[in-house]
């Protein structure tokens, strides 16, 4: 049993084999609104209970995304001004006006129109590896569907998909030495992304298409078009949010199905379990580990006095294993039902891409498990060193080549 003094959620080293679930379990039971000191910051309250995460999320007027941004680390005024261009760092009413620009394109119904297209993508991706018998899962499978899909929705030509992918890696990987050695490189990657967005935007201004870039160009908030900065930021947010998270959950799902072969077999025996399995992967290994809010008033949660201006951090992996919200929460169970997890958040900032993510995840796992049913992790899993995204950088897998399996079956 750790003492509170040992718990340090600020240090990404403690996340380099995945989130520290023993700490979250202890915190939920002993100190669910836990004050975490910071070496280079004012400290923050840590939320690990399901109902509390929901409460904080549902009250943007009390817990602001704008005031300090939504990342744990403190930002200089200039950087804060910069991140406030992203709608993820806005509060109502401003947030709603920005979100409304694109929200109609992300509803479950609208996303379901992409089903055949996503299926064709997934099929091609599996085609490329199916007879190799092994591959590097992150670069060859997990990253491919979300990259292609969000880039297409944005109107990024296929030749530029890799560039957008590389830039978004550098933006997310700010704590991991493999991707980035400093915040400055993140700044550079952002600048390169903005330059790309502007170039694409210039092309679309001349000849608009039915893509998100064209929609952003023609959009207006309160009668005003988006400024260049606002357009750039929106493009960046969609590119990153669309890339990093779905890739992460795909890789985490592959890892979990490998570690729980009985669960993988349950799905191959009964493919109707793909939907529930995807929800369980999301619950068990949410891509987003943490988001931050800043209190706008003195607020009490479970007897703790949160002061106006205090930082409050929500820990999604913690809330998703709350014993009071889920039966046997540490059990990975692909047939779990109900499964009302908060991997996508809830309320004002509920993940805009949730339906898209779900479609991609169901499709890629269906394609993989149908054609390569014995696919499993082969060797070490290389995690992203981050307390923000539960990423996997590299993970080799092996499987019986498809043609060989077919020959054996016939």
């Amino acid at each position, binding site marked *: 049993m750790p003492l509170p003094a040992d718990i340090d959620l600020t240090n990404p080293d403690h996340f380099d084999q995945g989130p520290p679930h023993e700490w979250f379990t202890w915190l939920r039971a002993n100190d669910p609104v836990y004050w975490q000191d910071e070496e280079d910051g004012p400290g923050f309250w840590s939320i690990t209970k399901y109902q509390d995460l929901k409460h904080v*999320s*549902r009250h943007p007027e009390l817990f602001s995304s704008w005031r300090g941004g939504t990342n744990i680390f403190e930002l200089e005024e200039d950087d804060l001004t910069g991140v406030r261009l992203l709608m993820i760092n806005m509060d109502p009413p401003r947030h*709603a006006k920005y979100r409304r620009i694109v*929200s*109609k394109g*992300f*509803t*479950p*119904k*609208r996303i379901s129109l992409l089903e055949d297209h996503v299926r064709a993508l997934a099929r091609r991706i599996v085609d490329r590896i199916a007879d190799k018998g092994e591959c590097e899962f992150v670069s060859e499978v997990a990253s491919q569907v979300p990259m292609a899909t969000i880039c297409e929705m944005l109107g990024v030509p296929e030749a530029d998909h890799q560039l957008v992918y590389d830039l978004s890696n550098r933006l997310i990987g700010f704590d991991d030495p493999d991707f980035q050695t400093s915040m400055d490189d993140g700044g550079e990657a952002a600048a390169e992304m903005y330059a790309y967005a502007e170039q694409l935007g210039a092309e679309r201004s001349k000849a608009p298409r039915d893509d998100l870039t064209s929609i952003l160009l023609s959009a207006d908030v309160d009668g005003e078009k988006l400024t260049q900065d606002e357009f750039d930021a929106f493009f960046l947010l969609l590119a990153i949010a669309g890339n990093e998270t779905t890739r992460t959950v795909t890789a985490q799902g592959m890892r979990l199905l490998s570690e729980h072969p009985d669960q993988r077999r349950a799905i191959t025996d009964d493919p109707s379990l793909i939907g529930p399995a995807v929800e369980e992967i999301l619950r068990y290994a949410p891509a987003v580990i943490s988001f931050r809010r800043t209190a706008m008033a003195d607020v009490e949660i479970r007897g703790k006095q949160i002061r106006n201006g205090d930082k409050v951090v929500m820990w999604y992996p913690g809330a998703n294993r709350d014993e009071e919200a889920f039966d046997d929460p540490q059990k990975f169970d692909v047939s779990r039902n109900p499964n*009302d997890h908060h991997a*996508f958040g*809830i*309320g*004002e900032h*509920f993940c805009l891409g*949730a*339906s898209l993510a779900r479609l991609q995840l169901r499709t890629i796992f269906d394609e993989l498990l149908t054609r390569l049913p014995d696919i499993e992790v082969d060797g070490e899993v290389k995690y992203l060193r981050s307390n923000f995204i539960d990423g996997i950088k590299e993970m080799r897998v092996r499987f019986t080549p498809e043609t060989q399996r077919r020959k054996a079956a016939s």
Partner: protein
Amino acid sequence: MKVVVDYDLCEANARCMQACPEIFYVDDDDNLQVKQETFDEALLSKVQEAVRLCPRQALAIGDD
């Protein structure tokens, strides 16, 4: 009791329709239609589910 909808928050996720189709209907244009605003005890638990499950927390139960 009556259903209160924040249409600015609604994004046609249709969890409400799954939970309580007697009251909530999301049409082909992604518009939420509330079939009956007021309801009684018989539908309360379904409406409560709808309120709980809405990913955008766009629903509430109000007094008549």
